[in-house]
């Protein structure tokens, strides 16, 4: 009873937080037809700055961290990325109206990680005063990349099987079939994307240079404010994509709502195991849950579009951006409240 009350109060308190408020604000602006626009150049710069900041912070932290502490959480992150895609394989893909390509692309995005959701969770944890290992955000690629790669490989296999089944066409010029990109290429391409490049660059600089002064005088103070702008953009985009989502099967909307909660719970569970085993912190567990709950909205979609051109972006981008990300953002207070209770026991 007491627990439930505490849970509800923590949760309600978090909903008032500016980060979520800006998200709702963006949705409201889009819904009301406001002409307010964040210029694209500014948005892209904000993403680079946020990713650099997360990377720098993690890199600086790793300098002092015990690498042994990171092994289990990193493993958990990888297991989550792979597990989320496999789970979709045996649930989402069996539903009626779901083409394998579309279902796998959707699963890949939801297995991957949203940088903006991660950043928002970091700010919420800091505001609330719930500590986390400063290197925890560096778990990002350990979940993101395996999920995307696995989804792409499964899609290529599904396609190859389908091609075998189709008999040789009775004649006429065969349409040139662009050959499937190889895993190495996809991996390299994914790491070359803007967001991941900035994250990795930040981590390397944090590790080998001494960027602490510029980190503290610039990246750290701007983080929260730039995130508020990013949330505005996410909110506007979420609303705009809802229309697209309406054009595809209902399953994607259902998946977009439920998957973040299921995946987040999986992330929380594995994180809690890591806590029991190696003392992974409460905030770290929340961040792992948030990464699992979130779906990639900036860097995942182009990777999937390039690698699975047959998949319909209205389905996977729609499910992720218009529902997955807002729900994942809203779920952050949930994991925090859960951690608050479990770690106090």
């Amino acid at each position, binding site marked *: 009873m007491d627990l439930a009350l505490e849970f509800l109060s923590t949760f309600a308190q978090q909903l008032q937080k500016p980060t979520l408020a800006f998200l709702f604000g963006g949705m409201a602006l889009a819904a009301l037809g406001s002409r307010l*626009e*964040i*210029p*694209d150049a*500014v*948005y*892209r710069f904000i993403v680079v700055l946020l990713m650099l900041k997360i990377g720098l912070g993690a890199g600086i932290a790793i300098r002092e961290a015990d690498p042994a502490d990171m092994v289990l959480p990193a493993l958990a992150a990888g297991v989550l990325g792979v597990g989320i895609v496999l789970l979709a394989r045996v649930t989402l893909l069996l539903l009626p109206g779901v083409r394998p390509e579309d279902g796998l692309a959707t699963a890949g995005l939801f297995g991957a990680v949203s940088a903006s959701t991660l950043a928002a969770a970091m700010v919420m944890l800091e505001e609330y005063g719930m500590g986390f290992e400063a290197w925890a955000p560096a778990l990002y690629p350990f979940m993101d990349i395996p999920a995307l790669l696995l989804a792409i490989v499964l899609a290529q296999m599904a396609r190859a099987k389908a091609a075998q089944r189709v008999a040789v066409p009775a004649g006429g010029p065969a*349409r*040139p079939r*662009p050959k499937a990109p190889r895993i190495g290429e996809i991996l390299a391409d994914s790491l070359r994307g*803007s967001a991941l490049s900035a994250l990795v660059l930040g981590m390397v600089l944090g590790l080998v240079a001494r960027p602490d002064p510029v980190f503290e005088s610039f990246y750290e103070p701007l983080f929260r404010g730039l995130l508020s702008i990013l949330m505005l*953009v*996410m909110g*506007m*985009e979420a609303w*705009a994509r809802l229309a*697209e989502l309406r054009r595809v099967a209902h399953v994607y909307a259902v998946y977009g709502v439920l998957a973040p909660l299921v995946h987040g719970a999986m992330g929380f569970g594995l994180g809690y195991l890591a806590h029991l085993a190696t003392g992974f912190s409460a905030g770290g567990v929340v961040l792992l849950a948030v990464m699992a709950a979130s779906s990639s*909205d*900036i860097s995942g*979609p*182009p990777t999937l*579009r*390039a690698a699975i*051109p*047959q998949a319909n*972006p*209205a389905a996977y*981008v729609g499910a992720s*951006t218009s529902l997955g990300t807002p729900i994942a953002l809203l779920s952050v207070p949930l994991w925090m409240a859960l951690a608050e209770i479990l770690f106090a026991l």
Partner: protein
Amino acid sequence: MTIPAIKLTIVVERLLKPPVERLLAEAGLSGWSVFPGGGRGTRGLHRAEAAQLVREFAIVKIEAVLTDRATAERLARTLTEEYLEDQPGIVWLEPVEVLRGAKF
């Protein structure tokens, strides 16, 4: 005084810019220009200038002036068949005139 030439215009998502440029380079084109923009088509709206989560889904227009009409037609066909069945974009050709044939 002027030499007839042909302009190939390709409007695609930024994601396709690298393969399209590779195609143009392989066809031996000496140059082309690129302009960022937006648009509306059968696959919905592409905003211009305003923030869009995925930069790779923004629209770019690639314009190449060349003197060899056959190459232009072949490129248009390849692009249409290999990329534009599945992915957003259009291609068109326009007759133009240039001064220095050697430049193209």
